[in-house]
């Protein structure tokens, strides 16, 4: 699976961060302080203009102190009452329509999505989760952005504020109520989506009897049969059967089938392993160049996508993964009942000459104790390009021809173990990225993994609701909706936005881009130096500074998406979910405070 950004351990992410990036908590506190200061300053200046310096100071102080004390005195009972109101209101506004639309999409999905791809599960999961995300976000947007403005417009807010409720209760009540409605919708969509995927992938085959051939051993005794299945669901499998007629339809299109004999017939089971949740245990990757010297990256073979870098075959170049925490708990038992270290490796092959097309490129895998430097004997393999290859490393190994024990001799005292992979054919290359080698722990439940992916969607939904409610406290419905849409859009393209702000994006800042668009110049054409150009760049600098500030509070919506994990059949790490939930909680706190103060500015809520 492709993981372009490294997932930090939770506490590292929260407290210290990595490299130049601060931890999430310090960043939150700094942002909160800056925003609070700016809010106080802004409030004071407005009061200063209206009431003069002394009264302005007094008003600012009172608003801040009262506000903070009110925020601490929110009542769960009142919030729940207001949440129920929000739920009723949502129901009255026919949010159920979203479900109808979702069902319609699923009903006609077969028109648009074929399952004749090599990995249909990937496509179907991606489709279902994406459709659910967009629909849920749309509903969250509509109910949250228009709710309070409509109450103001219809004056129904008066019936609420005449009761002993605080502005904070109203904001939190709305957020909670809409979240409950959204969650219910999400649960129904998730269940239907899962059933849809399961039913779409379900199929069976028959064994083509006239194609079955006997497999004989050296003595001419029939030890089984081989053949193929019928073509169903756009694919077929090779079949291997034992002498009793039991066996399997070998892996194809991301799954396999069991076959057992019933009388004269072979019965093929439904698909197995379409849905998986591999649990990888990753190490850290470093490279050795052709002379065996440590380098941060391997060679570029000219790919536009720089995710993987390459090592040269027939030289000392190697990819070295250092795995930590290797002990008995990561071992598993193979089919013969022996304990093994289950390694999985994805190799990308790059040939500089074709050579024998029917033969794969040879590679080798070797273990090394980082403490003692003891290396196991080389285990050669034929690279299977861009697919997951399994290596069950036995606990009894050989190093220099002498028997050694994996845990005792190859793993350091701190539990570290190095996996060294090399390409053996000269002038041929292997490409790797850090997530391409891992210890495969026992699979997690695919169903639970799917639920975790839905939690990722839920997090996005809650964020949209919080933004929608907070923005609707001070502006009318359409404006609140536009603001939230902008927030979501920029959130989805946060990386691009930040790159524009930092000047890393080709094509320049916002004004320069506009000029290029209007004058039909491409992104890299130079613009002649003139007063106009200098002015344009000056304006861009100011705008880029504003954008950079905005980027500090902009949620990265794409980072919440865990669709790829499910699509590629990998378990969503709990750490990922914990980070997402923490970020959401932080946004809710921030948006709740903002929403509270904005609502306080409305006369009706004072």
């Amino acid at each position: 699976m492709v993981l372009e950004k490294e997932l930090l351990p939770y506490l590292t992410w929260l407290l210290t961060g990595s490299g130049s990036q601060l931890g999430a908590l310090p960043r939150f506190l700094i942002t909160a302080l800056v925003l609070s200061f700016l809010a106080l300053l802004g409030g004071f200046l407005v009061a200063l203009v209206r009431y003069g310096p002394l009264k302005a100071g007094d008003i600012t102080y009172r608003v801040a102190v009262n506000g903070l004390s009110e925020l601490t005195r929110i009542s769960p009972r009142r919030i729940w009452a207001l949440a129920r109101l929000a739920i009723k209101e949502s129901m009255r506004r026919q949010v159920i329509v979203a479900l109808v639309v979702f069902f319609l999409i699923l009903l006609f999905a077969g028109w648009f999505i074929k399952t004749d791809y090599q990995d249909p599960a990937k496509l179907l999961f991606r489709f279902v989760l994406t459709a659910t995300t967009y629909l849920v976000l749309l509903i969250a947007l509509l109910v949250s952005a228009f709710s309070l403005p409509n109450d103001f417009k219809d004056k129904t807010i008066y019936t609420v504020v005449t009761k002993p409720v605080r502005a904070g209760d109203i904001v939190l009540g709305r957020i909670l109520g809409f979240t409950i409605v959204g969650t219910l919708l999400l649960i129904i969509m998730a269940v239907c989506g899962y059933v849809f995927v399961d039913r779409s992938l379900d199929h069976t085959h028959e064994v083509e009897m006239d194609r079955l051939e006997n497999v004989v051993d050296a003595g001419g005794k029939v030890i089984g049969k081989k053949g193929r299945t019928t073509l169903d669901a756009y694919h077929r499998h090779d079949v291997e059967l034992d002498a009793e007629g039991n066996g399997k339809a070998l892996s194809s299109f991301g799954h396999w089938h069991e076959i057992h004999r019933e009388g004269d017939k072979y019965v093929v089971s439904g698909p197995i392993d379409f849905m998986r949740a591999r649990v990888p245990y990753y190490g850290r990757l470093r490279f050795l160049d052709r002379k065996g010297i440590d380098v941060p990256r391997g060679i570029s073979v000219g790919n536009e996508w720089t995710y993987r870098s390459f090592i040269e075959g027939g030289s000392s170049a190697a990819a070295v993964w250092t795995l930590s925490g290797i002990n008995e708990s990561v071992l598993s038992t193979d089919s013969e009942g022996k304990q093994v270290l289950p390694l999985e490796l994805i190799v990308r092959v790059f040939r500089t000459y074709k050579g024998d097309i029917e033969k794969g490129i040879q590679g080798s895998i070797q273990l090394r104790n980082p403490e003692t430097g003891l290396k196991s004997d080389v285990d050669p393999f034929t690279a299977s390009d861009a697919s997951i290859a399994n290596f069950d490393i036995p606990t009894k190994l050989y190093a220099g021809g002498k028997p050694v024990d994996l845990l005792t001799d190859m793993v350091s005292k701190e539990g570290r173990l190095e996996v060294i992979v090399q390409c053996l054919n000269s002038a041929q290359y292997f490409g790797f990225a850090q997530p391409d080698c891992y210890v495969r722990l026992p699979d997690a439940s695919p169903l639970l993994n799917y639920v975790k992916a839905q939690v990722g969607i839920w997090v996005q939904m809650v964020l949209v609701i919080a933004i929608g409610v907070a923005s609707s406290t001070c502006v009318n419905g359409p404006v609140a909706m536009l603001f939230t849409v902008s927030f979501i859009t920029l959130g989805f393209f946060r990386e691009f936005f930040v790159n524009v702000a930092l000047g890393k994006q080709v094509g320049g800042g916002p004004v320069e881009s506009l000029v290029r668009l209007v004058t039909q110049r491409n992104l890299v054409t130079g613009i002649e130096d003139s007063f106009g150009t200098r002015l344009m760049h000056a304006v861009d600098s100011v705008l880029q500074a504003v954008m950079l500030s905005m980027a500090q509070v902009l949620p990265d919506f794409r980072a919440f998406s865990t669709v790829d994990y499910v699509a590629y059949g990998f378990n969503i790490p709990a750490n990922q979910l914990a980070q997402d939930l923490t970020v959401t909680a932080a946004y809710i706190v921030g948006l709740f405070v903002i929403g509270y103060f904005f609502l306080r500015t409305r006369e009706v809520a004072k």
Partner: protein
Amino acid sequence: MSERTSFYRKVAYGVAIAVLLFPLALLSSPATVNDKGGKLAQLRTENRLSQADLGQVDPASETMKLATLGLRGVAVNLLWEKANYYKMTEDWTNLTATLEQLAKLQPNFVTFWKFQAWNLTYNVSVEFDDFRDRYYYVRRGIQFLQEGEKYNVDNPNLLWDLGWFIGQKIGRADEHVQYRRLFKKDDDFHPADRPPDQRDNWLVGKEYYLKGIDAVDNKGRDLGRKTPRIFYSSPAMSQMDYAEAIEEEGYFDKARRAWIKAGEEWEKFGKLVLEHSTGVKMRLGDQSRLEEEVAALKAKFTAIEPDVRAQLVAEKKAALKPAEREALDTPAEKRTHEQQELSYHASQSLEISNHEIAERIGKTHPEQAKPALQLSNELDRKERELQYTINYKADSNYDYWENRAKMEQTSDAIAAREAMYEAHQAFRQGDLIKAKQLYKDGFAKWRLVFDAFPKALDNDVSTGDDLVDFIKQYRDVLDQLDETIGDDFPLWVALETFDKEQVFKEELEAHKERIGTAKPKSAAEKPTSDADKTTSPPAASAKPASPAKKP
């Protein structure tokens, strides 16, 4: 503005709308079972622009187009971006799925089908290391194009591309041996009624070429900007490629039949009327007839007034400036740069057109003016037709393929190729003596072939490549036997023509030196190797090869 004025204006609007409705109805009323519909509907039918005429009507496609609410262009752009991104990040499943979504949004944009099918077949397939994965995406691209053909039924360009992809990609790739093998075994690609011996990529490709020709010739489809010469020659070329391919695989009887058929089809292609972009119609097989006609017309034209051309040349020469005349009189190699230019312009001005001759005849013999002018026009027309025919023939290598098809179907050529094939097999099995003998026999047959078809030595395409490869293999065999190619090798002359990469440069130079500097001694006097003792007679039409003599 009074209330009445406003009322009148509204009435005027109403009347205008009502009046406009009539022409609108005439123009755009839809066709029904009993009615041809309005003018627009009729034009649509005439020009085959309605969806049903273009190809398969796909509800999914229509729904998607409608669902974009007029933002189809935006959606298409986004999807193209996504497709590029997926291609960059090697996410082939999503790339293929995105292409299918794009196809639903723009099903009648023929270039899209061609471009993306090419992308899958030629660009995505090579991203894989395993030739089976490569074949999967080659086939996927071909199937994508087949899907496009369903939406754009009888589109000659798509049909031709299908023929090209199936033929050339499978048959010419580095992995063509593997691809052809997989293609033949591909039960899921071929229709159930296609016999096993027709599961050849060149023959299947030919089927599509023929379908394309049928669409143009019988269904009135427009060929667009495709050159008719390439379009109409493709089936016969595919047949030749098929014959070549099965020969390479060792099916010689079948290959002979295939070459005979290819020869017939090439001849048929030569009789086909092709239209040049200038509107001139011609048949490639008509060159000799045209040459005769031109010669006859020229003779007739000259007979009217035999000396007029010479007179005109003399007059024009006399009118030249002294510097031009001097430049013309100076030998070409001694001309200065300025003289070269002057002589070029002078020579051009000395050229006499048929029309000028006819005009002169008209002046000197007014009674001959009309027939002379008619003859000059006819001669111009024929000469132009002949020139275009020669050009088209040269572009399509017509004579070479005509000769090749005739040559390859002869018993000697078949025997020569069979010997080469068996020699190679023997070499692979390690039987060097047998391999050497087979090569020798084979080259002797090749010699006979070239004697019978000396034109084959004029062209260095295909046969030449094959032959150089065979000789390379022969040299490998001899190397292992510690021998070299002898002077009595019957194909030195052919090697001289075909060895464009100069792989045999040293051997050729040494051979020339030997035969050029000393009279050959008796082969028995100093035999260098068995290879030198070949008994193959040197070709009558070629330079006589000297008996072997090691320097």
